[in-house]
């Protein structure tokens, strides 16, 4: 009934996709504003932060939030607001990039595994099993230890890879399961019967129908990546002190002081939650917006 209702409406594609997105996914638009703000904070952190994030001020150690230090200061008297603004860069680059790289490679592997089946499927899935068997931290540790540091534009590229790798097998599993059911759909059979190439079938016919699980995994793992980066930092393998990073702010000496100075963990924690929440909402909105079935 709804299908016929929609059939009476005009053609579904609107002229301006951005306006259309804002109109039909208001929550998505709000979350996009939050993400954009964080991105701007990351890019222009030097300009917008009130203090130098590395500036140690022993006069105001563990100062509670006040007019001078909106979010308070940490055990070295560094301004937490400035550190959060500077940390946005690390968080977004490492969190987003590693989650994106990990989820995308996982999705490609999962889709290929499901499409080809048989031996290829078996081989990919056994590798995935091995990867899943390692605890995430150990796996990332090994990668960091083997690859060492490779700074690109001030960001450790190998760290991104190290965080991305544990994400790959998990996404591969989930996407494979979804791809198996898409693989069995008659429209994929129809594409095979039409003699299309494998690449075309995977990219054109299967991938768009796997967007939903992919986007959910992608946004969910951004949070994981930020936290994993913090754990690695704590072990001295990730971003290291005194660089401003959200995870590091949570896991560093904050744990020794949080009773006396709860703002030391409260604000970085809020920053991570807000980022994750915004990415999740944005991912959901994007998924719905991309799905033609919701365009009624």
């Amino acid at each position, binding site marked *: *009934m709804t*299908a016929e*209702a929609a059939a009476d409406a005009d053609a*579904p594609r609107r002229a301006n996709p951005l306006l259309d997105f804002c109109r039909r996914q208001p929550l998505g638009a709000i979350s996009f504003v939050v993400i954009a703000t964080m991105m701007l904070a990351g890019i222009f952190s030097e300009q917008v932060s009130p203090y130098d994030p590395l500036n140690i001020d022993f006069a105001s150690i563990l100062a509670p939030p006040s007019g001078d230090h909106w979010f308070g200061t940490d055990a070295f008297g560094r301004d937490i607001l400035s550190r959060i603004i500077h940390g946005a860069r690390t968080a977004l680059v490492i969190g987003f990039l590693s989650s994106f790289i990990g989820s995308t490679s996982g999705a490609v592997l999962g889709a290929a595994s499901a499409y080809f089946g048989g031996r290829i499927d078996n081989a990919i899935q056994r590798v995935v099993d091995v990867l899943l068997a390692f605890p995430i931290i150990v796996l990332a540790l090994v990668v960091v230890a083997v690859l060492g540091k490779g700074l690109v534009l001030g960001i450790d590229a190998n760290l991104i890879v190290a965080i991305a790798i544990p994400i790959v097998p998990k996404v591969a599993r989930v996407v494979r399961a979804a791809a198996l059911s898409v693989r069995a759909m008659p429209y994929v*059979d*129809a594409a095979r019967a039409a003699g299309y190439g494998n690449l075309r079938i995977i990219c054109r016919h299967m991938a768009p129908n796997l967007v939903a699980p992919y986007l959910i995994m992608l946004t969910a793992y951004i949070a994981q990546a930020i936290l994993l980066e913090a754990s690695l930092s704590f072990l001295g393998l990730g971003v290291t002190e005194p660089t401003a990073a959200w995870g590091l702010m949570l896991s560093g000496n904050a744990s020794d002081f949080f009773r006396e100075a709860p703002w030391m963990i409260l604000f970085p924690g809020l920053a991570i939650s807000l980022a994750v929440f915004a990415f999740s909402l944005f991912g959901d909105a994007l998924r719905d917006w991309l799905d*033609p*079935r919701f365009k009624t």
Partner: protein
Amino acid sequence: MFLASWIAAILAAAARFAKSHPERRAVNREGDGYMRLWLGRYSVKIAEPMSEGTIVYDRPAGEETRGSDGRELLSVTDLHVQFETSGGVVRAVEGLSLRVRRGEIVAVVGESGSGKSVTALSIMRLLPRHTARIPSGRIVFDGKSLLDLDDEGMREIRGRDVSMIFQEPMTSLNPILTIGLQITEPLQIHLGMDDGAARARAVELMRLVGIPDAERRLTQYPHQFSGGMRQRVMIAIGLACNPKLIIADEPTTALDVTIQAQILELMRDLSRRLDIALIIITHNLGIVARYADRVVVMYAARRVEEGPAEAIFHRPRHPYTMGLLRSVPRLDRPRGEKLETIEGLPPNLAHAPPGCRFAPRCPHAIAACVSEPPLVATDTGGLSACWRADEIAAGKIAWPAAGAAAPAVTPDRGAPLLAVRGLTKHFAVRSGLRGVRGLVRAVEDVSFDVHAGETVGLVGESGCGKTTVGRLILRLEDPTAGEVRLDGEDLVTASAAELTAMRRRVQVIFQDPYSSLNPRMTVGQIVGEPLSVYRIEPNAAAVRERVARLLGQVGLRPELAGRYPHQLSGGQRQRVGIARALAMEPRFIVCDEAVSALDVSIQGQIINLLEELQRSYDLAYLFIAHDLAVVRHIASRVVVMYLGRVMEIADRDAIYREPLHPYTRLLLDAAPVPDPTVEKARAPRLIQGELPSALAPPAGCVFHTRCPMADADCRAAVPALREVRPGHLAACIKV
């Protein structure tokens, strides 16, 4: 001390709870009727037995007599049901009135979206809470007004006085609970039976619905039952509490013809014996003919006609009913060249036109039809909502005859376009790492020819391998053995490049128009894809133009190119599927159940379209179907399969007039005919038993386990397909 008072308080609360919510009690595992609270291995008695010795197994004779007394059991008056959707308010049922007497069998017939299932769900009060509304109407069941009952009261009626049987026996049983548990559950919940009594009743119910070896089968799980057996289990669950009314929503649509007949026979027999009223909701007019006392025809949320089954079939008084009856391909009538159809589509219920809903599709619409016709009594003792019902009764209006009969296609009997020889497909059932546990012989030594411009029908029950044959020809599966020759070239041994070239000549139309189109692509992209991939058209503009032309050929407006599949109706989607196949300019199309998911009036349109296209483009079809009447209409030769093997091949007329193989005969006998007089005169169905598993097919002739003519010779060897008469092949040693 403190602890003890706590436990006492909990127990008291539990006892009160158990009494006030009998359906939520823990299962009684001791069998003595006491309600227990289980604490690990220990149990505490918390409530008295609820029903010692008061269990009624069957309604005592004479207490409530058969429907002949005409007492009304259910009355639905002026029911309106609306759904809130993003496309506006959909009026799914409008002003429906329905009366069911005790023990009566009422059929509600209509196409998808006509509101028949919504009516059933409203009676059960199972409509989705947040989107559905019943703005007005009354439903009175056995003196109680169902719409005024609270949830508690409704739960007591559901499953106890009224039960429901759903379409899909595969999904309506819980796969992780034993059959026994699922049958005893309503007995324990509604009748408060203890384990022993419930179990005894379950065994009795299983016997009642004809499941042999009941005690053992109670401990089994749903996957160990076949589709037909599962539907019997569903009926047993429905019967468990001696209901007064059973609502069956498309109870046999998912089943094979031979099983359908058994299930319906069973339901009618039980209704008569146990005095249970039955509402059968269906789109299949054949079913209705044999089993219903009264028929209600629904169209676009309204009741358009109602009457005794005989009258509805022989003297319909509404143009929609007339059209519906004429668009069904029938086994009992000579095959016309073209199916008569109802043109157009049912209206959108979110913006339904005023007046008679059927007027836009009605060939007899007049000026008066812009206002809504009332339901008026007809000369046949029924009701019809048509301004011209009197004229129909007077014989002044007849359904217009279909277009002129086109000359029959006479395929040349030269070299076949497609030759299938010894085609075999075995699927290995694996377990563990390397172990092969068994071999499913899906297709075994199948051979037949298809000539250019001809339609070959491939029929058989589900699981007979007919779909696999189609997939092997399309090379979606690799055959285990045999060859498929297209114009003399073998598709099985073809190289990848040769195969791609050949794929353009062989195309496919799938059964389910909902899943055969990629939901993320527009109609234009779907139809245009092969044109650009194979460079059939040089540029994007030419592709667009060609897509518009193709859509025109399948009877769709070119504007639809910008739509997504979910915005189209089932029939429109199937037309898109046909346009996609045509875009490749094929010579041969495999139609895998291409019309079986469509409504009757749409089915006729698609069949006519396929026939027109065949004539225009000299296409050959392999028409895979389970509906014998449809195959008879469209095919010139018919191949009958059973358990992976070909049973019979013959020209259409020969096979329907004089079927040789006993399986074909039984299949034809089981197919229902939409004519109550013919149906009621026919002997009860003969075919017994179920399809054996393809994992372990019977030795010798695979059909001998169900064959009435089988003897020791049949079990000895597999009969070869031999030419019994010229052009008529059968695999049976008895003919």
